């Protein structure tokens, strides 16, 4: 991290850009500290002997042992993961293609369609949950993984779409035209030229979709069956008798697994090169 800008008088002042860069990275560190403050606390408390987690009573691995034996909780975590991954993939597909088509073509009703896409973002979860449940019950569709995933895709794909659209705005239209002139089909042009260019926005959208799905409670409650109950449902239920440090332990394991996954995939990417 660059030091605060206190420079000896005789040295040359760094260029304006460098000062800005320094300030910007310092601020990023501050924001990350803000985001990680509760995470550090909850990981620390996962080793606390006290069940109610109010004061520090001593170090223990007990909660980790309990988590690994709590099959309903592990099962719920597994369900959450399956649901979040599947609905993220579907949201990315729906959102990216949708953003491109809305950007690329002009047709009657495009603005209405655009507005409609934004509606799930503003729709209170309870309304979406209950109305989807009524819909599924009316058409005789059973509750469970499919119903939950439909609900999750509905509220997360608009986030992907909006993120991708922001990136498309101001994209040089000549790029696609060049590809078309060189003999690519429109589909090829989209897949080989546009998608790679959109990748940062797609990644950003996917991260948001995953985050939303992973931690959603209300829509899930109304669309789930016993078999597809997710982690948030279990966690909110457990709050009734006081949050168990087991949940902290589970979160810590998940954070560790994510970080390990990132480094592992980095390593794999290097190997495949």
């Amino acid at each position: 991290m660059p030091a605060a800008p206190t420079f000896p008088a005789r040295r040359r002042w760094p260029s304006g850009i460098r000062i800005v860069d320094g300030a910007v990275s310092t601020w990023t560190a501050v924001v990350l500290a803000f985001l990680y403050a509760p995470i550090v606390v909850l990981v620390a408390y996962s080793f606390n002997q006290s069940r109610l987690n109010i004061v520090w009573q001593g170090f223990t691995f007990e909660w980790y042992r309990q988590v690994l034996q709590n099959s309903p909780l592990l099962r719920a975590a597994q369900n959450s993961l399956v649901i979040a991954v599947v609905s993220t993939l579907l949201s990315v597909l729906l959102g990216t293609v949708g953003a491109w088509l809305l950007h690329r073509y002009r047709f009657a009703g495009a603005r209405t369609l655009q507005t409609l896409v934004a509606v799930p973002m503003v729709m209170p979860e309870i309304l979406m949950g209950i109305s989807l449940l009524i819909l599924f019950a009316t058409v005789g569709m059973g509750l469970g993984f499919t119903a939950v995933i439909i609900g999750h895709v509905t509220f997360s794909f608009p986030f992907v779409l909006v993120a991708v659209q922001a990136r498309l705005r101001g994209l040089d239209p000549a790029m696609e035209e060049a590809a078309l002139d060189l003999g690519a089909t429109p589909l090829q042009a989209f897949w080989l030229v546009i998608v790679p260019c959109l990748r940062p926005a797609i990644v950003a959208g996917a991260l948001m979709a995953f985050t939303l799905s992973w931690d959603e409670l209300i829509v899930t409650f109304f669309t789930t069956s016993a078999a597809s109950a997710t982690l948030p449902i279990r966690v909110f239920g457990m709050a009734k008798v006081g949050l168990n440090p087991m949940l902290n332990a589970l979160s810590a394991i998940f954070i560790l697994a994510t970080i390990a996954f990132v480094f592992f995939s980095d390593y794999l990417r290097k190997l495949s090169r």
Partner: protein
Amino acid sequence: MKSAPDRRTPRWRAWLLLTPMIAWLVLFVVAPTAILLVYSFCERDEVGRVVFTFSLENYRRVFDPIYLRIFARSVGYAGLTTVICILAGYPVAYCIGRAREEWRHRLLLLLMVPCWTSFLIRTYAWITILKEEGLLNGLIRLVAPTATGFDLMYTPTAVVIGLVYAYLPFMILPIYGSVEKLDGALIEAAHDLGAGPLRVFSSVIIPLTLPGIAAGTLLVFVPAVGMFAITDLMGGARVPLIGNVIQNQFLVARDWPFGAALGAVFMGLFALTYWILLRLGAREEDPA
């Protein structure tokens, strides 16, 4: 600015590609909304079930000053959250977007990992920090033993902290998408032409990343207006926001039709505003 991309009318292939999204929207957004709309004109029985009649009573109640005041307050909280998220998030998005390529994805993940911890567990961790005898006040007393410390928990400040914490990544990510596209040469050029850092920022960087800021504003402001859980947990449920009121109609008062009417007005107002903004935006882009 570049010229607006020349848009075309879709041919059959494009319509085919559009179909899944339109079908999805019709089935899972339009149909449920229509169900709610029907409900909002109905009455209810004692379990909250809908009795099919036609009544405007629910809409009359929506425009009661109590609910209008609550709505205005919700917009206020969401607006404040959005502004703080832009100010705090922009530099972070800029930093990540300008980082070396192999670092970008790592930084992005680093940003998101805290959100993958259950909201409730994170909130309880915040309570541990912010409570009267919590870590923050402990730290303050360590530095300045005479300080009284803050009484933050269950105050509007705590609600705003919770909101910013929850929505900040949704501001940073779309801005990152725009910043990443910035042409470094353009900034260098502006700088070489004698523009100071502030000038470069305000007349080159900001205009080029405006779509990202607009998208982030949409992704933060809109969900934040209808949010309910953070006011309950961080604010002690003392001051209801519109999300809480709608939630209560289903999970406390058993008044589905009124809940549906509140929701319909809320979503209708939003959709109208958004549609008008889209229209204005289109006119600006293409005055013809």
